[in-house]
């Protein structure tokens, strides 16, 4: 496994992914400059207006500015996705490291648990918990994280298992180094590559799950917004009120493609074959 950039080769999917994500990021960052209107201010007399000079992206049922809601909702979507990915990766890495290094029956039980949790259809379970609890953004982040760490744990575990028997690990063990030092200084950096790739891909998955939930009315709650909930506003006549359904959908699509491209690019860059 080579993590060190040995050859700076042009990596198409990496480049295009970074450009895509960069553009969406700039849109979210500088969006408020485009529209002075608050994303929650209602104006029922201007309900469902198509794009015009005062509302560049039109208005929704309550006469709220769609552009402002797209920017605000996008920030929520991104924050949820990145926060829960971050937590899932941490949980997964720690459990994976622990399980692999302990071995024996602890490893057996942990991996069985991973199998069981992977067998739950993700949207199904998250929908249950978020739907039954009072849907708050922090609960959403937690639940998404709690049902996303398994794949990371699996990857970390299998990488650690393969590193554990590498000659260099045997050699440093023979030097008499302590276990924590071996795990964190010698093993962890060498399993990070695959973990980074799958975390970037995980962001995409979580964005899709979150926007599905918000679309169903179970994720981010009004008056807050996410791209999924904005899309829900346009579900009665998807093409008639295209300014509600098309831009939000395209933004989700663009972001997911962007992160997928970066993931694939990193995958190529790091020359990993094992993970998909």
């Amino acid at each position, binding site marked *: *496994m*080579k*993590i*060190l950039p*040995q050859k700076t080769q042009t990596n198409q999917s990496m480049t295009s992914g970074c450009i895509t994500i960069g553009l969406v990021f700039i849109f979210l960052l500088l969006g408020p400059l485009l529209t002075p209107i608050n994303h929650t201010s209602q104006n029922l007399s201007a309900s469902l207006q198509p794009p015009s000079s005062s509302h560049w992206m039109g208005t929704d049922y309550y006469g709220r500015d769609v552009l402002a809601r797209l920017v605000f909702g996008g920030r929520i979507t991104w924050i949820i996705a990145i926060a829960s990915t971050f937590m899932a990766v941490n949980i997964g890495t720690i459990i994976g490291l622990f399980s692999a290094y302990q071995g024996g029956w602890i490893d057996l039980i942990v991996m069985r648990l991973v199998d069981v949790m992977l067998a739950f259809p993700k949207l199904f379970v998250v929908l249950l918990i978020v739907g039954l609890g009072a849907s708050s953004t922090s609960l959403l982040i937690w639940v998404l994280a709690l049902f996303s760490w398994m794949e990371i744990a699996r990857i970390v575990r299998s990488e650690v298992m393969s590193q554990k028997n*590498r*000659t*260099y690990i*045997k*050699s*440093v*063990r*023979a*030097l*008499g*180094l*302590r276990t924590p*030092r071996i795990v964190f200084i*010698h093993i962890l*950096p*060498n399993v990070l590559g695959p973990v980074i790739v799958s975390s970037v891909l995980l962001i995409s998955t979580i964005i899709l799950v979150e926007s599905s939930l918000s679309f169903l009315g179970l994720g981010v709650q009004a008056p807050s917004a996410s791209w999924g909930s904005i899309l829900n506003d346009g579900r009665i006549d998807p093409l008639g009120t295209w300014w509600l359904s098309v831009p939000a959908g395209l933004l989700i699509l663009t972001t997911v493609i962007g992160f997928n491209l970066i993931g694939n690019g990193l995958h190529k860059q790091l020359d990993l074959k094992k993970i998909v």
Partner: protein
Amino acid sequence: MNSSRQKQPILEVNNLHVEYPVNFRGGFRRQKKQAVNGVSFTIFPGECFTIVGESGCGKSSIIDAILGFVKIKTGTVLFEKQDLTKLTPKNFRKLRPKIQPVFQDYNQALNPHQRIEDIFRETLPKHLLESQTDQLLSSVGLSKEIIRCFPHQLSGGQKQRVVLARALSVNPALLLLDEPVTSLDMSVFVQIVELLISLRKTRNLTFLLVSHNLSIVHLLADRVAIMKNGQFLEQQPLTTLLRNPKHDYTKNFINQITQL
């Protein structure tokens, strides 16, 4: 060699059995593969004891067993009178520096994320770090310019020299050499063997060499054990073995040496 016989043995392996679990997908029943099947030998300070056999005969498992990397089914491993199989993990860790391995695959023997200088930082005391690193590197024939390098920037021979220097950094008494030169080019091969011979003299080292490469056995070995299917067929001083092999299997090996 006779003089060393009267000394206390440095390593004594008695009736060693090692087996590996062979797993298959999702099964409950675990199968076991016998890798080492009742092996005994004694190594005295300063000598080079060699185990020769085809790949897969279990010779590398003996090294793993001595280092405590595989579970020993039965048998004892006594290093300077201490039974390694009965030590607590903590005490074993403290004893580890005395026994250092050098493996065949030098490409995998160094952490790809660690600069050469950081390797020595892990074991050498801080105030002596620079002087001792220089000394170690020069003793294995490396210039000190390479300390800022990552392993992938070095050649195969250089890597194997770094591996040797790392092993020597903890002042071992016994080196376990597992095919130390087999993957190297012929010219580098000779250099490393010469290095091993000189290190053995200057540092007063004992070697346990495992190899199927007969040239290195010829150059280094004092006593030789022939191994097949997890067992020793015979063990003899090299000269005796060459003159008077007992098994047909051994004869085949010797024919190969003389043809070289």
